[in-house]
């Protein structure tokens, strides 16, 4: 026995497994629901006469249910294949549901429209290029970042670049662009023969003779005892002199420093000698 109202009243009370309640509206998860809403007229269970449109692998079918077949659940739905052409499909729905109420026909047509639209969209997207999403495992990313940092430290980039540039200079890549005194070239070649690992330190080692005396001349003890004003002097001069090897400036600075220092420093005798050696 089919009693639509009895079924609907039972379902509405909250025992329908297809019902999805939200704050604004109730929805229906039943595949045969034409609108997807939980209302009396849209419920595929509590309507003995019902029609809907479904899509199976790109083909649309009209599903019709009538009261006569209510006793045979296996044969309940009449499945009618709709033509591919949209207009023809609409006409087919009209023809099949000719004596049915307007709202049933209208809802089926609206559903057909929607399905046709999403099929078109799907086909279009399939032909267009697709983005490929890939995973970025956090652990791997972290490892790669860490190894990158270590590789960077091991690379000693500036040294490598400088070495390569000097190599090119020696090979004569730059032609006549750079002219340095002959001795510099000779030294560079000598260093290359010996240990050429650290070029940055070489300038200091090359002037050893001058430097030994210079160390005495600066007088470490003196420096330790000197007051803050001397310290400032020292640091100022230092910053200006350190990177460039302009010997004359250094001498002047040294002279100044000597004048300021305490009288117990008796190394003034050596000064002219140093000047002489340095100018070489």
């Amino acid at each position: 026995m089919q009693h639509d109202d009895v079924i609907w009243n039972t379902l509405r009370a909250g025992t329908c497994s297809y019902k999805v309640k939200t704050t604004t509206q109730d929805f229906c998860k039943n595949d045969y629901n034409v609108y997807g809403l939980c209302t009396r007229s849209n419920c595929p269970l509590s309507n003995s006469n019902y029609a809907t449109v479904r899509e199976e692998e790109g083909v649309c079918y009209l599903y019709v249910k009538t009261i006569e077949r209510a006793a045979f659940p296996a044969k309940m739905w009449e499945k009618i294949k709709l033509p591919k052409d949209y207009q023809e499909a609409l006409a087919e729905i009209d023809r099949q549901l000719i004596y049915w109420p307007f709202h049933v026909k209208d809802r089926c047509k609206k559903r057909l429209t929607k399905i046709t639209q999403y099929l078109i969209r799907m086909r279009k997207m399939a032909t267009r290029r697709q983005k490929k999403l890939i995973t970025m495992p956090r652990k791997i990313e972290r490892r790669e970042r860490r190894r990158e940092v270590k590789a960077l430290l091991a690379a000693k980039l500036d040294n490598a670049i400088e070495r390569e540039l000097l190599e090119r200079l020696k090979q004569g890549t730059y032609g006549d662009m750079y002219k340095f005194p002959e001795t510099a070239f000779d030294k560079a070649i000598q260093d290359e023969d010996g240990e050429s690992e650290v070029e940055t330190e070489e300038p200091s080692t090359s002037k050893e003779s001058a430097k030994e005396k210079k160390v005495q001349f600066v007088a470490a003890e003196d420096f330790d005892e000197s007051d803050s004003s001397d310290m400032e002097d020292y640091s100022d001069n230092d910053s200006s002199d350190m990177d460039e090897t302009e010997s004359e400036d250094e001498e002047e600075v040294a002279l100044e420093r000597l004048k300021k220092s305490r009288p117990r420093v008796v190394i003034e005798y050596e000064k002219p000698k140093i000047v002489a050696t340095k100018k070489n």
Partner: protein
Amino acid sequence: MGKKVYALNKAEVEAKRKAKEERRKEREKINAPKQTPRTIESTREPDDTWVDPEDDEVKEDESLDLLSDYFARKREPKVLITTADNPHTKTIKFCRELKQSLETAEFRWRNRMPVKQMVKAASKRNFSHIIIINEDHRKPNGLLLIHLPKGPTCFFRLSSVKFCEQIKNRAKITKHKPEVIMNNFNTRIGHTVGRVLTSLFHFDPEFHGRRVVTFHNQRDYIFFRHHRYQFKNGQKVALQEIGPRFTLRLKWVQAGTFDTKYGEYEWVLKRHEMETSRRRFFL
């Protein structure tokens, strides 16, 4: 309990230190040569594909491959730089800075153009390379480099991007053609990648511009740096960075132009099969 362990350790440490000192003294006595430190580089697993650039066979291969036109000084580079769909500020900025340092490059908006179509169009317009910058979380994270017209194609992971303005004491960029330094590209695949990267720059650098671009490979990470240099004397160089900086890591190489579906992969970094040892490197 804890104290006991500590005491033991301390004794051990002391013993080790003494032993080390003794060994050092002994070596000094007999004037033994200085030992080289064991680093990851010095203990690197040997690779069968190490290439000697002076080898005749290698030279012949090079003269026949797809990049030979550039190295024979017949074809000047002309680079097209573009982005993935819908780029954001940092990616666009990166492209512009890359364009600056490449000198021969041109930046174009992508306009949702498929790569394959772009390859065709660009080869028709006589471009020699396409660079596509991919982005993730609004930051550049991938670099696709296609050599035209017939490949090869390399894809790199892009990381540690530092823009020019983030570099302190940077030098101003000039419009001279830069020199290129390629360091440590030793294996066959490394050699190929190195050649592709070199071919991005003009083969006749303008030496008076004193610009130098470096691709330094260390443990498969390729560091890009861009400097201005100055020879202080015959043995000292001063460097001033121009920027940008970034790091590349090779992910795959295709023999032809970009075709991830049917294209032939020359080399792919497979983590589980290949990254089995810390001392094995591929470039």
